[in-house]
């Protein structure tokens, strides 16, 4: 019904194809990959869910949050607290509780933060996330700087999540489910209102939309979905520490979303996978003479980010669509 957007909400054929191929590859992967790589791809899928949750906030609603990792970490810690020393905890109780915890935190912090605009919003989201970070970092009772271990994966009764491949497919199911949900939401009345808020909040208010409650709802939902990702992360890695809620984690999320392309959730998935792969590439760079190239991966990552912002601010999807647009022009 709508005309092509500059914000790439309607996915071009090329991207849809890419996603389908990607899904096929993800399904096939556990049958050909080693345990090490299954773990790695599993982590990427979890980060993709995390990135999509941020995309809802950032790409769709236009709220740049530098503290989104707080909700990622809270759910992870919730699972850590709920998992007893000697036995697993039920998936069916721990998952809603953990995600609910993240959602509640997002609701409370969101209530304080959504009333601010622009730069303020960026800074206060960061500040509150740091507050959560210090809450866990400074308190031995909450694990302190060392963090907490989980001795068991959650018990799903019907399937065995301790099995790597089973857990992998469970994560994949969550990834697909979240993607489908968010795509549906994007074209719902709520999603359309959020897009309107991003493009012209003033007019939305003049039209009678309660923009505060819309933004708060988006903030809370995004927090809940980040919690889902954090829960899976804790379950998979068996370990949580305050870094999961830290500034760097939040900034990584932003970078993943930007790298892929904002506003359509497909970009978030692409960005998450690309970012992690890039990180591995930089860390594994062979030494040039005496210079340990890999050790200084932060430098290459930093330069890459700077280059990305300067030359390709619309990310990978932006580049793909530009490429295909030019091809179409030549055909005409």
């Amino acid at each position: 019904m709508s005309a092509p957007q500059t914000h790439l909400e309607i996915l071009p054929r090329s991207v849809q194809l890419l996603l389908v191929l990607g899904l096929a590859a993800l399904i096939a992967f556990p049958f050909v990959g080693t345990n090490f790589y299954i773990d790695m791809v599993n982590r990427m899928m979890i980060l993709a869910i995390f990135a999509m949750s941020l995309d809802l906030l950032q790409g769709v609603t236009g709220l740049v949050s530098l503290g989104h990792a707080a909700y990622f970490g809270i759910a992870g810690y919730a699972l850590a607290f709920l998992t007893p020393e000697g036995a697993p905890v039920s998936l069916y109780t721990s998952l809603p509780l953990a995600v609910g915890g993240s959602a509640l935190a997002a609701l409370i912090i969101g209530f304080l933060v959504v009333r601010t605009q622009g730069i303020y919003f960026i800074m206060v989201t960061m500040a509150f996330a740091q507050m959560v970070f210090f809450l866990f970092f400074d308190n031995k009772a909450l694990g302190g700087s060392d963090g907490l271990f989980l001795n068991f994966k959650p018990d799903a009764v019907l399937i065995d999540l301790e099995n790597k491949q089973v857990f992998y497919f469970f994560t994949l199911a969550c990834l697909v489910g979240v993607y489908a949900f968010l795509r549906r939401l994007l074209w719902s009345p709520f999603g359309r209102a959020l897009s309107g808020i991003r493009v012209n909040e003033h007019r939305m208010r003049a039209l009678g939309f309660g923009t505060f409650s819309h933004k708060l709802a988006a903030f809370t939902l995004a927090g809940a979905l980040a919690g889902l990702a954090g829960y899976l992360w804790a379950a998979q890695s068996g370990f949580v520490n305050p870094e999961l809620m830290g500034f760097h984690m939040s900034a990584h999320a932003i970078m993943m979303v930007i790298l892929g392309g904002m506003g359509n959730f497909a970009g978030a998935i692409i960005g998450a996978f690309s970012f992690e792969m890039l990180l591995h590439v930089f860390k594994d760079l062979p030494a040039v003479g005496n210079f340990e190239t890999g050790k200084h991966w932060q430098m290459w990552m930093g330069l890459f980010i700077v280059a990305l912002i300067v030359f390709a601010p619309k990310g990978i999807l932006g580049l793909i669509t530009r490429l295909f647009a030019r091809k179409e022009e030549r055909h005409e």
Partner: protein
Amino acid sequence: MSERQTLMSARQLTKRFGGLAAVNDVNVDLWLGHIHAVIGPNGAGKSTLTNLLSGDLPPTSGTITLDGHDITGWTPEKISRHRLGRSYQKTNIFRTFSVWDNVRLAAQSRERHAPWNPLRWLQSAAGLTAVNQRCERAIDLAGLTQRSQTVAATISHGEQRQLEIAMVLATDAEVMLLDEPLAGMGSEESAKMVEVLKRLRQTRAILLVEHDMDAVFAVADTITVMVNGEVLESGPPAQIKASVAVQQAYLGSEDSFHV
């Protein structure tokens, strides 16, 4: 004079910025089936008045009533939900959306959509028939049917002004505040818009801030002339046309008062 139903009124409305009174002790009434035009030289306070009535600016003193409620100090969202709509002098559209999406969003605003309702997250916005109907009607009325699939940033300035009107129409507002709707329109488009206003008049109360004197005198039932934030004179078009005080107010200003 037949019984007039007052939909909106303002009494002793004043807005000060520091020492300057942009709007000073202004009374205005908007009646159903009536177009009330507000004219005056630049800087007269017309836009400020509109902003006060729509809730975009809080008044320094005075009261505003809408449909029986005292709306002084209400937020724009709340006022809008009480069936007031406004168009802007400086085009205030969703530039990256298509014309259809602009108006559709305006039409959607009338649905009682609590953002916390998960059902609203899964419904398809394009499937809301009532919204689509309102949208189509508004676009048609504003004369933009040919352009509905075009991105709003790429249509002509005059068409963007039409879009402004379409958005207000889509909200089915009972009281409409139109801030220079004809600005930037060619004579043919202006004439069409004047016809639209005439058609709308029967079921709305309209405040029309305008510089286009031909349009104002073709369509207004009452004209209020503002100068330096105050009401100079208010009355039927014939009275304003003949008024010496009004002629003098325009003398020496950039606007001309030739009818």
